[in-house]
């Protein structure tokens, strides 16, 4: 009777150990997956930051002019100059427009 009780205790101990190991494996897997997710997110952030840092170019073809009513408007300075010249002489307008809009360089 005593030895049966003892064997049962040993068996229970083994089962407990097995269950404990399974819990440890699942915990470790959770941490590994979490670490991978964190690292992937960081890599994505670093990639986008580098891309944004490279694209720091400022271009402007317009110029802000103040209007008589106090407001301001963005205008293409050279287009305005061309429009003013057309008021004086608008011969060959299509040719001139074509030449201006031709891709240079």
């Amino acid at each position, binding site marked *: 009777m005593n030895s049966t009780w003892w064997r049962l205790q040993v068996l229970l101990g083994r089962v407990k150990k097995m269950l404990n190991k399974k819990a440890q494996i699942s915990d470790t897997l959770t*941490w590994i997956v979490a*670490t991978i997710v*964190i*690292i992937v997110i*960081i890599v994505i*952030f*670093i990639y986008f*930051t*580098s891309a*944004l*840092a*490279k694209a*720091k*170019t*400022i*271009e*402007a*073809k317009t*110029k802000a002019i103040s209007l008589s009513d106090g407001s301001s408007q963005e205008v293409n*300075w*050279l*287009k305005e*100059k*061309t429009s*003013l*010249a*057309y*008021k*004086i*002489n608008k*011969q*060959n307008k299509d*040719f*001139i427009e074509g*030449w*201006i809009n*031709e891709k*240079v*360089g």
Partner: protein
Amino acid sequence: MNNRGEDQMIGAYWFVIIFIVAAAVVYMVSVFYGHPYDVRELEASILINNVADCISQKGELNKNLIEEGKFNSEFNTNLLKECNLNFNTEEVWKDTPQYYIVVSFFKGTEITKAVFSLEQGNSNLLSNCEIANEDYQRLAKCVTERFYSTSNNEQYLVEITSIVRKSEKNVK
């Protein structure tokens, strides 16, 4: 005893993760703010606008530049003064001018040969414009714009090319 060891390990793990995240944030901030803004194209466009303002007003070419159909070559010599421009740069580039501007005038529809040209600055920069490749960011930036103007009812087509180098301060 076992529980304490587990806690210590998780604590160490958290410290490692916090360190990685903090290092990544520091790296991202330094990468983003470490790259300067490339304002050379903007600078070249502003230069073009100012020169255009100087040579053509209200649709007519400047009277000091052209009178009775004849271009004044003196205007080229005094271009910077006439247009209130200053090509001075920081000490770093005091020996090599960082700007170049060329203005070509074409009469009527004769666009094959310019009737007159104005130019100022470092003409060596012109060779940079022939290479249009994103891999050559350190080369000078070229901007070319065209517009139309008149003088005594004669038609003139104007092409302005402006080049700005200053690569050291605009590209990393």
